[in-house]
């Protein structure tokens, strides 16, 4: 989640390269050198997600509120602080939900009012992150049988996936973000039961991981991360799960070469006073990257308006680096 790059405005561009994995041809000793190809190079444009909201606070009402703890009149500052904090939290939640949604499906859906949707149902806007269909669902033949079946060779499927990842991008898969059904499938699988019975260290890890979570290191995956608790409350007040029960997303170690959190800029006013000319007015704007906020007082009637927003994108620079697997075809 840590931002790694800043761009001006809401767009950016980065260079895409691929590592060399071919072998060199041999030559006869003493012969002239053979000219060899350079690697391809590409560029990728990105358009950042932007959110901008406001909330109005009525000082005439707030001023009569008392603080929550001491029950003294405090001009409603306690309440203002709470409202401002919660208001900002919505933008933080958007970032978090966006990151998880990109890792889960590689596509973002929004309704007509710009609300994030958990699926394409009702979507008016669809924002693509260029996921390869071969890296989704059953990952083009990796999941040959459902993990819900106890006799499925799950360890082999994981090994084949790791092999493919190495060949496709060179990034080794080290992390698995998983849904709530995955520990159950693993703990009931015949291959894994046998393995755990013969591997006390891994078995003990599974027992001590709590609530039968998957121990780190199982089948060469360094980190198994449960993400099934993630959710957000939609505009109707309904909790929407951010992760599917049968899904695992496998990723390499977080690295700027394939994943970045890019923040864009927004011009935030620092004054609404009259200034000498347009140049001074322009100079009064402050360039803020990522999350921003500011407040304004209007006078008729007196109102305090808080503005907040964010400009960011989880840049999945190498979409082929991750695998969004549905283990129950």
């Amino acid at each position: 989640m840590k931002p790694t790059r800043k761009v001006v405005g809401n767009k950016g561009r980065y260079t895409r390269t691929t590592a060399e994995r071919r072998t060199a041809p041999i030559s006869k000793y003493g012969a002239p050198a053979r000219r060899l190809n350079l690697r391809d190079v590409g560029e990728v444009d990105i358009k950042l997600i932007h959110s901008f909201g406001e909330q109005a606070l009525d000082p005439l009402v707030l001023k009569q509120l008392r603080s929550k703890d001491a029950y003294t009149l405090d001009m409603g500052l306690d309440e203002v602080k709470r409202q401002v904090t919660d208001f900002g939290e919505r933008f933080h939640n958007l970032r978090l939900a966006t990151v998880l949604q990109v890792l889960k499906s590689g596509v973002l859906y929004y309704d007509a009012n710009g609300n994030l949707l958990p699926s394409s149902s009702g979507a008016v806007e669809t924002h693509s992150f260029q996921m390869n269909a071969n890296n989704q669902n059953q990952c083009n033949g990796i999941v040959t049988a459902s993990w819900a079946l106890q006799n499925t060779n799950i360890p082999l499927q994981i090994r084949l996936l790791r092999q493919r990842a190495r060949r496709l991008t060179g990034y080794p898969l080290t992390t698995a973000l998983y849904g709530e059904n995955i520990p159950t499938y693993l703990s009931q699988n015949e291959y894994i039961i046998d393995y755990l019975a013969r591997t006390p260290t891994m078995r003990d890890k599974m027992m001590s991981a709590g609530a039968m979570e998957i121990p780190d290191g199982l089948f060469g995956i360094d980190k198994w991360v449960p993400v099934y608790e993630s959710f957000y409350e939609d505009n109707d007040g309904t909790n929407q799960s951010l992760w599917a029960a049968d899904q695992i997303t496998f990723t390499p170690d977080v690295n700027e070469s394939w994943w970045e959190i890019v923040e864009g800029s927004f011009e935030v006013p620092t004054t609404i006073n009259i200034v000498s000319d347009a140049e001074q007015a322009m100079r009064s704007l402050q360039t803020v990257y990522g999350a921003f906020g500011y407040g304004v007082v209007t006078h008729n009637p007196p109102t305090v308006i808080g503005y907040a927003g964010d400009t960011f994108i989880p840049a999945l620079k190498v979409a082929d680096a991750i695998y969004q697997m549905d283990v129950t075809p």
Partner: protein
Amino acid sequence: MSDLQVIGLSGIRAARTASHRTIFRQGDYNYLAQGKIIHGAVARDPGNTGDVNVLRAGLLMGMISATGLYAPSLIGVTTGAYTSGGTTITVSAAQATEIVRRVGSSGTATLRVIGPPTAAGTVAVTSCTFSAVDTTTGIITITSLGVDKVAGSFVTAADGSQLPLTLIPDGYGIQVTDVDGSDVDVSFPQFPISGVIVSASIVNWPSDTSLRTWIRTNLSSVSQGKFVFDDLYGI
């Protein structure tokens, strides 16, 4: 004061990749001093799908007689054999599109069909009059050529560029349109006149041996280019 333009909704766009091609087998080659100019309006690489305005390394280039500017020698390659008397020849849809763009939808003797009558036969440059081009199927309606042509014969313009004198050298290609997509004449600074060529890297390198010889003898002659072709060495 230009700005980076990224049109559309938020998200990651598809990558635009520049692919490098090498045509020289080794580092011994020569370029013509001062270089030449490519005529952007008639220059396209129809086989470079998605980037036809970028002339790939290995594309054969000839000189337009009237202007001294350079253009691609081969526009199309026939997909089937032609029997004398026939009224159609067929190329790919992309090549048909380029024929219409560069030469027109019809013309009298404005195309050439270059090829032998039979496999490995004597290559003939035959004038071609055509009346229609289907850019979906690639079918060109022609007046009978009067001779047979093998599949894989070349379809070219008749402006002088049909005789290849050089080719686009190693690199990512040469773009012949500006940022607005308009044709522009561009420099051809690295104009190969000698070197050892990886024959298979020549764009539209034919399978017919006499067409291969035709390309070699045009590129490499007594008074012009001096090229060596690696396929002649059992490679």
